[in-house]
């Protein structure tokens, strides 16, 4: 068997939350290209169906499940239905997340609801989905969970509270799950993407030079790392968060714009 075969996910089934757009869609497609069937989860059916069309074009099965991942009863029902539909689930990608209702507000203006919404969207959702699937993973003595955090899971930014706090929590959730279930052949890892804008306006593009790489991440770059972490090739890795950010966290955001241009390096 060649090392490249160890990245093959044929015969596996993956739940991907937030599969209707951006990074979630890219991850679903990459997992499908590597051989996995997909359960696409999210609130809005239409974008989930669009992802489904792409997955089916690749030749994989796709099951769409409208779910509010911050509601544990909906999450439990989604997982039960997915298992009923596919028999076994091997991979869970906890990708759903976002800025939440309080994004952009100053601390005194943040309401209790803003706080809970921000934490629930990014952290509680991953906790609920992991809790819902763990017995199934234990029963089959196999499971792979991939969480998605952010550079802001490591660092802070002015007047940002729920997002960095919940994303930091996702890194700790990864470790807690990894250590709790290491003996049962359940591996838990986390991807920390840098900036991957989904609609590049000239306004955003203008700031690309502040990134060490001089560019943002391209959506298609997230898929291969997801496949790697979901595969047998990553069997001795667990609890780890891996950055895919063109060096942004290693550099730090502000001095990043000082990364040397090509001509200065040679």
């Amino acid at each position, binding site marked *: 068997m*060649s*090392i*490249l*075969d*160890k*990245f*093959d996910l044929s015969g596996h089934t993956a739940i991907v939350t937030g599969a209707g757009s951006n990074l979630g869609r890219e991850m679903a497609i990459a997992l499908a*290209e*590597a051989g996995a069937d997909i359960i696409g989860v999210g609130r809005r059916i239409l974008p989930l169906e669009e992802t489904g069309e792409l997955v089916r074009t690749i030749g994989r099965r796709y099951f769409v499940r409208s779910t509010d991942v911050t509601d544990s009863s909906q999450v439990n029902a989604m997982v039960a239905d997915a298992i009923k539909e596919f028999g076994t689930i091997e991979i869970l990608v906890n990708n759903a997340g976002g800025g939440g209702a309080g994004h952009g507000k100053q601390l005194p203006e943040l309401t209790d609801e803003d706080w809970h919404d921000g934490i629930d969207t990014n952290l509680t959702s991953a906790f609920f989905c992991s809790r819902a699937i763990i017995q199934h993973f234990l029963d089959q003595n196999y499971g792979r969970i991939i969480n998605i955090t952010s550079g802001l899971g490591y660092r802070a930014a002015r007047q940002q509270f729920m997002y960095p706090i919940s994303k930091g929590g996702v890194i700790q959730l990864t*470790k807690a799950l*990894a*250590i709790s279930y*290491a*003996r049962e052949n359940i591996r838990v890892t986390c991807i920390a993407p*840098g900036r991957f804008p989904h609609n590049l306006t000239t306004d955003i593009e203008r700031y690309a030079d502040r990134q*060490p*790489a*001089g560019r943002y*991440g*391209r959506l298609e*770059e997230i898929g*291969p*790392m997801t*496949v*790697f972490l979901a*595969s*047998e*090739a*990553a*069997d*001795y*890795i*667990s*609890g*780890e968060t*891996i*950055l*895919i*950010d*063109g*060096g942004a966290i*290693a*550099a730090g955001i502000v001095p*990043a714009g000082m*990364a*040397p*241009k*090509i001509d200065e*390096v*040679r």
Partner: protein
Amino acid sequence: MDLFDLSGKHALVTGATGPLQRSVVLALAEAGCDVSVTTVTDQLDEEVQANSILNECWSIGRQGEALTINLTDEAAIEEAIISLEERIAPVDILVNMPHQVPIVPFLKTDAAAESQAFSTNVAAVMIPTRIIGHRMVQRGVGRVVNLASIIHDRGVPNCSLYAATQGAIVGFTKSLGIEWIRSGVTVNALALGFYEELAGPQSDSRLRAALEQYIPLRRLGRSDDIQGALIYLVSDEAAFVTSELLVVDGAISVHA
């Protein structure tokens, strides 16, 4: 699968005669890459090892050569790389794997031991990286992966010298990754935990048994365990991953 296919590329793995290094060379060859290796001495056993590794690569249709060079001798490396470029191809992927594990109480070390450890574990990484990296930056493409240990981030008795060299590798990796990212060259490190094939407390059978209980995945690492991470990091698909330390350690470093 096409994903992570390295066909048409040429990798150089330095310090290539240990079991971990052998595993890396074979993974690169299986992924489609031509692979050359370096040995530190021209002693017969090392040469036999290097040739046996290369034989396995040749048997699946890859090219590659064994170079015997002192990895801190700039002129010798430069000369070897020029001739390697002529006979095989420019180096697209550099995997720096010289790695010694000095375990000694700090008060028993001396300036000579420090100089030796930093020469083997650090200078032997930085000097080839400068010579080969210079060419990668000119060509606008390249992958550098350095072998490191999770010990850089932990306090372990009798490992101050070893840990200092590993901290040096991590710092080197992070800064150089940023310096070269706009040139299309990424620089990353693979951080290992306790492996069957590495020296360390695991060499003692009593400590080894304790480790097997303590490592969350309940076993020591094996040389094959690093193949997937290595292939991912050197692939075209990982162009946006740089200055990163990818830890392959059975989760021991996330344990409380």
